[in-house]
């Protein structure tokens, strides 16, 4: 053991002699118990559930029901077909469907309406009145006393003065199916459109009854608003949201997102929606089995795109779904997806914002994924690959017997062609890599000395990255690495051209703006030098920046034209802002690398940003 290690051990022993934490803070155990009750509730009904992101695990009781695939009615265009425990229904996609627990809702098993439901909505006995234009269908277990016909039956107009929920027209039916009695009520207001009444009737006519009920695992909560349905290798799985009405009676209502698969599938459980929107995927729940599994949970509404990635490196699509406004939870949304194939105990939900920035703190580390291999006469064997790191997936190139490297992180390609980067040095040939859409059929490096070198295009094996192809050009050592990388389509038309080689950054559009840009760039480079020396921005001072700055730059602790103000966001992020004497404001957001293989990321903005996140808009 060396001296520093010994010093560290001694120091930690001394520093760890902090007094014990304060006796249990008030409410701590109450918080823990409440959370535990929720989990237990899930666990009793759920199958094998792995809860809470990357590192929490819980096993739950397994249902003893044999596996049965629910019977689903065919969904016409604009409809979706959903299995509930006692019945399946095809209904208009933009309507609200609620699965009710008949034991807690006086035998009601579903409510369907052309308007948004609220918590506990539709209780006519409690004085609820349908709004104008509203139509609603309710289906109950049990029926009218006496002999009732077998399903199918029509929904007939009921005579009499009864006007539940203030409906102007009441429809009704009773029937038996699979040996059980059912009844339905259709409520129509005076202003309802004929089209909506027809849609309700079609939904009613689509009702399909299982031979044995329940046909699904249980929906947790006695009022479950359906969000989506998806097919899986074990049958259809339903995603829903509900408010825990037991909690509603307490000071803090709780809201949950749950799933229910076919009975016997062990796909059941719910994940609580936290008070604050999650920053990443920390509120994701997984239910994994040997065939794959379902991943779902609550994420910030900031997320614009999501995908699932297993520890083995496989990716699957994930869907983001807005939560109904009536749930009363803002700035959250649901995410879910199906994983196929057995995986380890961890699936990461990768989240991206509207600009393609990753919201997760950490990516799962995975094995290097080879895109292409080859052999160059001068450089020898080479490999073009994807590097799956904690920071994201980067593109890399290396000569097997020599050097190489890559950057991080790839983002979906929005254009047809983009230069990724180039590498040169040592005795090996240089390499140029570019990202290309399927439109690109040929890629050529045109050197300033007139040399033209053909490159190769290689498909990227991971489609979820959003980069269809990678272009690679290997440039011999004796050819100057300065020229244009040109992309052509299959007809020989030039689609894109990017300069390759050392080049200065562009000048500002006016002398006043150029002065600000130069100052910010000098400050940016000084901050990078500081981080390379200190590995943190936390201790950054203006004096240190002044010492490290190469070029004319004035730093200031208050906004003033052409002086740079620095705002440290955290140990790896800062923003630098300034303004021109003509009033225009600019900023550079700096993200320092978190691993030896990654590099600095800079974002340019046209605001006076005071934090890393605030700097946006480009120059």
């Amino acid at each position, binding site marked *: 053991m060396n001296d*520093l*290690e010994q*010093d*560290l*051990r*001694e*120091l*930690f*022993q*001394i*520093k*760890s*002699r*902090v*007094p*014990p*934490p*304060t006796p*249990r803070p008030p409410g*701590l*155990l109450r*918080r*823990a*118990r*409440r*959370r*535990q009750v*929720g*989990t*237990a509730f899930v*666990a009793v009904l759920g199958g094998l559930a792995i*809860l*809470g992101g*990357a*590192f*929490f*695990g*819980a096993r*739950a009781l397994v249902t003893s029901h044999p596996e049965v695939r629910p019977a689903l009615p065919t969904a016409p265009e604009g409809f979706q077909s959903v299995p509930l425990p006692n019945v399946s229904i095809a209904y208009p996609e933009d309507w609200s469907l609620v699965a009710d627990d008949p034991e807690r809702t006086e035998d009601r098993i579903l409510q369907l309406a052309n308007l948004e439901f609220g918590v506990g909505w539709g209780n006519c006995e409690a004085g609820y009145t349908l709004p104008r234009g509203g139509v609603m269908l309710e289906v109950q277990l049990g029926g009218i006393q006496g002999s009732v016909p077998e399903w199918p039956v029509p929904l007939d107009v009921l005579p009499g003065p009864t006007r539940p929920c203030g409906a102007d027209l009441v429809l009704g039916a009773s029937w038996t199916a699979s040996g059980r009695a059912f009844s339905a009520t259709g409520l129509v207001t005076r202003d309802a459109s004929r089209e909506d009444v027809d849609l309700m009737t079609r939904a009613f006519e689509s009702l399909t009854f299982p031979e044995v009920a329940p046909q699904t695992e249980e929906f947790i909560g006695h009022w479950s608003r359906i969000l989506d349905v998806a097919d899986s290798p074990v049958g259809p799985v339903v995603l829903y949201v509900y408010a825990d009405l037991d909690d509603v009676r307490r000071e803090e209502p709780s809201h949950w997102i749950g799933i229910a698969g076919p009975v016997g599938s062990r796909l059941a459980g719910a994940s609580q929606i936290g008070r*604050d929107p999650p*920053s*990443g995927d*920390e509120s994701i729940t997984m239910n994994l089995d040997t065939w794959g599994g379902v991943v779902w949970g609550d994420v910030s509404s900031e997320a614009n795109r999501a995908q699932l990635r297993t520890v083995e490196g496989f990716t699957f699509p994930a869907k983001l779904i807005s939560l109904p406004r009536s749930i009363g939870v803002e700035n959250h949304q649901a995410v879910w997806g199906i994983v196929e194939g057995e995986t380890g105990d961890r699936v990461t939900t990768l989240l991206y914002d509207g600009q393609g920035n990753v919201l997760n*703190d*950490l990516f*799962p*580390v995975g094995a290097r994924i080879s895109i292409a291999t080859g052999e160059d006469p001068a450089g020898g064997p080479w490999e073009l690959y994807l590097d799956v*790191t*904690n920071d994201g997936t980067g593109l890399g190139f290396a000569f097997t017997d020599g050097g190489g490297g890559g950057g991080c992180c790839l983002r979906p390609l929005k254009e047809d062609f983009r230069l990724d980067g180039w590498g040169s040095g040592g005795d090996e040939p240089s390499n140029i890599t570019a990202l290309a859409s399927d439109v690109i059929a040929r890629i050529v490096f045109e050197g300033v000395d007139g040399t033209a070198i053909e490159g190769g295009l290689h498909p990227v094996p991971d489609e979820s990255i959003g980069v269809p192809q990678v272009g690679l050009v290997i440039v011999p050592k004796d050819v100057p690495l300065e020229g244009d990388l040109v992309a052509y389509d299959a007809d020989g038309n030039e689609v894109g051209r990017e300069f390759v080689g050392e080049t200065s950054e562009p000048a500002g559009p006016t002398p006043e703006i150029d002065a600000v840009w130069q100052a910010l760039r000098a400050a940016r480079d000084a901050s990078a030098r500081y981080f390379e020396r*200190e*590995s*943190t921005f*936390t*201790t950054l001072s203006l004096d240190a920046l002044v010492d490290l700055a190469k070029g004319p730059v004035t730093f200031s602790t208050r906004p003033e034209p052409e002086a740079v103000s620095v705002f440290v966001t*955290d*140990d*790896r992020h800062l923003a630098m802002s300034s303004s021109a004497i003509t009033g225009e404001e600019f900023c550079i957001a700096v993200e320092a690398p*978190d*691993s*030896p293989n990654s590099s600095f990321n800079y974002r340019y903005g046209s605001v006076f940003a005071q934090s890393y996140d605030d700097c946006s808009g480009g120059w």
Partner: protein
Amino acid sequence: MDDASPIRAPGGQLAELYERHAPAAARLAYLLTGDRGLAEDLVQEAFVRVVGRFRHLRVPDAFWVYLRRTIVNLHTSQLRHRRLERAYLDREGRDPVPDVGMPDVGAREELWRAILGLPPRQRAAVVLRFYEDLSERETAEVLGCSTAAAKSLIARAMQSLRARIESESP
């Protein structure tokens, strides 16, 4: 895993779990944050998260393993940055909390300042390796990264610490 003697985390044993693990958790959290108030916040949040998600713990020691991992994850996550740093800022306006550790002198204090200046994941790696005495593989598991990445974090941290100490030596 030993299935023979499950213990139950919930119910009346919550208090017992807290009393048993909170001191060690507080020490770890303090070494990660360098701030007693932040450390307490971290421990409480981690405790709620772990307890809330476990109905049965079949191996008593597993609770500490998960609690430790949760503390480290919370420390390195944005949750720490957003929530705990807010809490820290709130506290800044109040009287400072005295550091009740042993008096620090000279080089030891320099080393402590250098550790607190490390990026969170590097700091966590060093604390797990040299305070919790975890192997590189175990450190990687807690940090949720590969063993190679954990080794790299530790190496970079040690390099930074050495450079810092050497630069401040007379």
